[in-house]
């Protein structure tokens, strides 16, 4: 991605070290690729979820072919380069999302497929979401078990959907039925969470060495204590020493990473790009970095909040999104909703492109990953939760048979798909929420 200096608001630039402001050079900024440990138990290394708010004009979304797919629909057209790693699934539904506050529950049921307790108080209750269940398995070895990202910076209190606490509308990921995970929308905070303060490779290396020498002193001082203490306290000291060694190991690993790759200065995002698209692409860039550096293996990303009234001038739509989705079947309005849908999909396509362009082993990042992109709402005019717009992308370590359109004759639970994805990352559950089986067609060779 090249963001020209002009396209960015002053307050939003990624401020570089020099005057150059070559922005943002992000793919060059990551540490060298972590050697991929062979983990046969978890064939799919990464799982991600991208949320599109307020459903879609499904007629423009759904490809006309069923089974083998050669030509994508207008809305999905930007995904064409990744067609062989892409499956469109039609006629999925979220029965548990029907509620008096359909925007809140469209969001929170998307990854949980569960029914949200109707409350505006602190006694909210949902269920552990699919990404968090996956994170317990494939995220436990990475520095961050999962990352939750969003695009809306402001916290709203008490202005959410009809009797539902804002947590439902704001949080896609829930670590437990009453523990929603707040998503981060500020690029700099995401970046610092991933990589700390930044600086050039040489500067980073110097910092790491300083820390290593400080730790030398720490461990010698702790070890000196050991001789002066009773048996009970010596155990504590051993524990401290083990922590010091662990951090030393991480530092050594990080030092090796910076030594192995000649990198330009690492720019730190400073502000938030004013333009939505720039912000979204930057957030996707950061996700590529997170995966590439193996800092995390599980992602969720909300492209906008439900009921958002954002306008998308970049997509040629100046009507606020939410009112527009109440289109009363006006074809012109439906077309404009489709334009916004296509725009959101194109941002996802941008992400897939970056992943595909990032080498990993003999293939690329996309090959070993699975991503679900879609919405918890079907037809936004009716606030319904059937015929959900859903695509699955990625190589799934060679298991995803792409280039297909699975069209269910009967409405089928979205939870079937979640169950299938979990199965692929090595979490074998009998059921998930209201699931009735798996989407077996997704991964086995086509029986079509």
């Amino acid at each position: 991605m090249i963001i020209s200096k002009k396209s960015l608001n002053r307050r939003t630039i990624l401020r570089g070290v020099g005057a150059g402001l070559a922005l943002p050079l992000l793919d060059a900024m990551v540490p060298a690729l972590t050697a991929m440990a062979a983990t046969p138990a978890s064939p799919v290394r990464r799982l991600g979820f991208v949320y599109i708010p307020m459903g879609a004009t499904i007629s423009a979304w759904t490809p006309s072919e069923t089974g083998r797919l050669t030509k994508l629909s207008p809305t999905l057209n930007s995904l064409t380069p990744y067609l062989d790693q892409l499956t469109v699934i039609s006629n999925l539904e979220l029965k548990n999302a029907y509620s008096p506050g359909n925007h809140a529950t469209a969001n929170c049921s998307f990854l949980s497929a569960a029914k949200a307790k109707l409350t505006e108080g602190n006694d909210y209750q949902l269920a552990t979401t699919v990404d968090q269940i996956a994170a317990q398995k494939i995220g436990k070895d990475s520095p961050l078990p999962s990352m939750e990202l969003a695009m809306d910076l402001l916290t709203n209190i008490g202005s959410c959907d009809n009797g539902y606490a804002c947590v439902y509308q704001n949080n896609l990921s829930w670590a437990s039925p009453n523990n929603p995970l707040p998503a981060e929308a500020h690029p700099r905070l995401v970046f610092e969470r991933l990589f700390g303060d930044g600086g050039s490779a040489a500067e980073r290396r110097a910092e790491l060495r300083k820390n290593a020498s400080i730790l030398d002193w720490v461990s010698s001082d702790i070890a000196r204590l050991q001789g002066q203490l009773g048996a009970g306290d010596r155990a504590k000291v051993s524990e401290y020493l083990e922590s010091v060694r662990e951090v030393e190991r991480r530092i050594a690993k990080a030092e090796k990473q910076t030594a192995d790759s000649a990198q330009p200065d690492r720019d730190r995002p400073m502000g938030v790009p004013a333009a939505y698209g720039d912000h979204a692409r930057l957030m996707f860039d950061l996700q590529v970095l997170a995966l590439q550096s193996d800092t995390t293996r599980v992602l969720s990303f909300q492209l906008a909040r439900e009921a958002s009234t954002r306008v998308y001038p970049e997509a040629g739509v100046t009507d606020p999104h939410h009112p527009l989705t109440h289109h009363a079947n006006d074809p012109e309005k439906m077309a404009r909703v489709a334009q916004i849908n296509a725009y959101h999909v194109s941002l996802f396509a941008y992400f897939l492109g970056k992943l595909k362009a990032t080498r990993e082993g003999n293939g690329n990042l996309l090959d070993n990953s699975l991503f679900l992109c879609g919405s918890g709402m079907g037809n936004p005019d009716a606030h319904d939760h059937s015929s959900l717009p859903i695509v699955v992308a990625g190589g799934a370590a060679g298991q995803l048979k792409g280039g297909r359109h699975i069209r269910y004759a009967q409405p089928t639970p979205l939870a079937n798909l979640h169950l299938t994805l979990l199965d692929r990352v090595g979490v074998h559950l009998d059921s998930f929420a209201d699931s009735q089986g798996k989407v077996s067609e997704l991964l086995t060779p086509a029986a079509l």
Partner: protein
Amino acid sequence: MSAVRIVTLFFAGSLLALCQSPPTRGVVNRYCLSCHNERVKTADISLESSPESSPDVWEKVVRKLSHRHMPPVGLPRPDEAGYQAAISSLTDSLNRAAAARPNAGRPGTFRRLNRVEYHNAIRDLLAVDYNVNALLPNDETSHGFDNVTVANLSPILLERYLSAAQKISRLAIGSPVRTPASDVILAPPDLTQEDHLEGLPFGTRGGLLSNYTFPVTGQYELQVRLARDRNEHIEGLDIPHRVEVTLDGARVGLFTVTPPKSGTDHNEADNHLNVKLSVTAGPHQIGVAFPRKTSALLETQRQPYQAHFNMDRHPRVQPAIYAVSVLGPYDAAGPGDSPSRRRIFSCPTDDEACAAKILTNLLRRAYRRPVTSTDLAMPLKFYRTGRAEGSFDNGIEMALRALLVNPQFLFRIEKDPVGVKPKTAYRVTDVELASRLSFFLWSTIPDDTLLDLAARGKLREPVTLEQQVRRMLADPRADALVNNFAAQWLYLRNLATTNPDPRLFPDFDDNLRQAMQRETELLFASVLHEDRNVLDLLRADYTFLNERLARHYGIPNVYGSRFRRISLADGHRGGLLGQASILTVTSYATRTSPVIRGKWILSNILGVPPAAPPPAVPQLKDAGATVGGKLLSMRERVAEHRRNPACASCHNLMDPVGFAFENYDAIGRWHSHDSSLPIDASGMLPDGSKFADASELRQALLRRPDLFVATLTEKLLIYGLGRGIEPFDAPAVRQIVRGAQMKDYRFSSLILEIVKSTPFAMRNSL
């Protein structure tokens, strides 16, 4: 004292106790033994043993008798004189046994500075006020305080300390900044900004005020952004408003924001609110506010809410500040003359001799003990490394950075002295005592006065110790007892995350939340600073209010954002128990909870916390629930709940206490009816004394001041020692309470007694 003498004393005391204990034996045999004998052993307690052989059991007996919990109400009980005689003789023998063989307990050998202590230590060591909450994780709470489970040092925590040390040492030295940074200061989203906020210039409304440390002298940019609704529209921007930016109270920018034309991007409306200015290194105060308009009167048909932050229910009438970003430095002009540099560079030249002097100074305060040349060796080595790569400052920064991760800074370490017998109480050294005092009273490292006295071995001398304690209580650092101790003891910390249901309590906002917290802090601070009787915490006939809270309480004639002392006339308020802060944190988001309030009183005021509830407890019926068409009151709903015998044993103690506060709703407002039903606030204390309302409950509590003072003592001891209170601490607690009683329970007397007590002055060997 020789071992032989101890043994002799022990036996003598024990025999004496047995001879003198007929009142106890008589009462126990008559009222207790039928349930608590070796055969029946109700609640697994037999009272056939002697107090000396099983003090833990008998300390429980003392507590049950003191609180008149036993024998249970309804069974035959001794008269008041019988109770007192039994308790007195029982405690006499327990105290004597304890005096003969003191058990001081054993705070952990390693106690990591928690987040508050770390922040304060950095502040006092380096004169840097750094927001460490952004760098370090939350501390876990145990025994009600977050300085108890602090022996851990996980890899992630160590990484955070490394990162914090890097950032803090750079900031303290004023090292050149590699790249300009940006910090975003957010206003609380539920802060109403229609009226003046305390600390901001008069004649303004709303805004935010923030202390910010600028790393170096140079050019900075302040960017202001206004609050938006969920449509990304600036709230309340119907007519032009002015925005004023101040630095240290002086105006540095004045802008006008005008409503965007219909359909245009709201970004245009506030993207000019940028101030470029040069700032000197060090702490400054950034303020942003709106010059008040003359005609901001709100006219609605109904009584207007005071809260304005919610676009759907009570929208902002005028624009509000969302955030201020600080960007920079640009054109950095060096480290300047900041307070931190003045604190650190205690020697004028830039040679190694000076470095050694600077580092010796820092080490002494960071390690909280006299330092030797051995201690200096490694820091000097780090200095040389840094110096070789850059300037003198760079060398000091490197040594400081290493120092801030050293376990001798991060941990308070108390080692058993060489040669001490196992499981024996010994006096802690003067140096250890200095740290115990400063972390107890100040939540930070000792200052030079304390360290000097400790180094000369004078701190433990009673006269010196008392002088020092009084000096420390008069020092501003003693506010830690308010902000750290009281905030945890009284659950005030929960207020920040308490969000009453906005539909039921539309008038709750951050302004009210802050005012509630402030009232409680100011009451506690008045007892501390005016050295009042600690019972004033329960019975004060004054409180501290600003307009917002006074209106919440229905108290007239209090105007403005400033807090002031108010005398209270009616019995509705006064003392902690009538304060909205405590009434709110002991309520649910939607309703009051007599159970939580009762439990709060039992745990935090009376010191007899009920047992934890069994799993799978059914929920209370919702408000509006009916039985046979009849609306149930809160009392009836709770009674329903109590019908389960497993629940009743504890709820029979908690609920009747909590009912006293039913006149206060879930955000502490006084009301006489609940869901159209008149409120019955009568209840009963576990000792069987009845009361008609909160005021009478207060009187009942005050009739037994020793119980409240003992509870406060125990809480202070947990906090001061960093460990839970054990039965063997009971004699010390009794002695502290007795000592304080002679001095009218003055706050200082309580602290002085604690500081002299066995658990505080001593420690048991392993």
